């Protein structure tokens, strides 16, 4: 047992040492429709000149893990190179009838629900592969949802550095202070991924988190 512990310790130490330098993975996590893919698109457009995925007002538009490799963010003389992993939104319930209310046929809605459930499972499975996670919360919504607390709690338990983003600050209903009150232990950056508001501060904080 002791030998296994030592083996694991050495393996993890080396994995951390090399993986963080050579293949830094930054995951984007959060509940559905918080603006994860919009932020991923913003980052990819800013530094690669191409988008990552499609966005929609209907929940669970992203139902598969999407990865963009070799993104390099530059700030003064500093560079941060990483792979960006956009994940499906994490939810505790998925009802195909909700998709039908948005105009889908029953067949389409059931298919979307099936793919969405797989997406949630994949998102959770991928948590252990991340070096840094950007948690994107919709600042117009109640921050105390258990999904938010479970995601952030799991990242803390795994010692994964977290950048908490309050998205959609351009909207009138945005309440960034309620997110700050809900997660006082985190430095929160308010942005509008769609309009690009405050994105510079977001990149600055990303550099700080990445060390």
């Amino acid at each position, binding site marked *: 047992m002791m030998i296994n512990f030592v083996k694991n310790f050495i393996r993890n130490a080396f994995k951390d040492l090399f993986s963080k330098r050579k293949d830094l993975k930054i995951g984007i996590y959060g509940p559905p429709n918080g603006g994860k893919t919009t932020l991923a698109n913003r980052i990819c457009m800013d530094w690669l000149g191409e988008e990552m995925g499609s966005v929609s007002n209907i929940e669970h538009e992203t139902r598969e893990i999407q990865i963009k490799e070799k993104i390099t963010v530059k700030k003064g003389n500093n560079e941060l190179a990483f792979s960006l992993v956009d994940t499906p939104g994490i939810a505790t*319930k998925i*009802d195909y009838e909700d998709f039908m209310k948005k105009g889908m046929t029953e067949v389409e809605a059931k298919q979307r629900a099936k793919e969405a459930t797989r997406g949630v499972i994949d998102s959770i499975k991928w948590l252990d592969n991340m070096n840094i996670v950007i948690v994107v919360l919709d600042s117009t919504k109640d921050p105390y949802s*258990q999904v938010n607390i*479970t995601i952030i709690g799991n990242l803390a338990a795994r010692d994964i550095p977290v950048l908490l983003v309050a998205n959609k600050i351009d909207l009138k209903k945005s309440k960034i202070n309620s997110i700050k009150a809900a997660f006082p232990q985190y430095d929160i950056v308010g942005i509008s991924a769609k309009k690009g508001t405050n994105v510079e501060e977001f990149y600055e904080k990303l550099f700080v988190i990445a060390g």
Partner: protein
Amino acid sequence: MGLTLQFVPYVEIETLSSLGRIRKLLNVVKEEKIVLLEGRLTKDEEAELIKTTMEEINSDFKGIELAVIYPEGQNNDLFKKVKQQFINMLLGDRQGLTILGPASVVKEIKKDPNKIQLFTTDPKSKRKSRSKEPCPTNA
């Protein structure tokens, strides 16, 4: 149809494996009952609960609503925190309350540090069925 709340004391899950705990809770939820669990699951178990829920979603089972009331944010005394962690290590995490219900019955659980509101699905009107104050901190 009436609303059934089933209280699950911590002693009923403390000897179970993580999988066993999740299975027990989901089995009750699938009977269209709302579970009031004494204490809470670990963070890993919460994530596993979501994963297992997703694996089992179908036309009849639409998922769960989940909320945990935990008094950790109200306790800033380091000594009390250490003492509580020690007690948790010995006796398990009995503090707080976990509320878990089927999405077909529970439409939404709203939570803030001072109260929890559980909204049930009602075809005629959305009614607030329960409002509960958080457990006091005894540490």
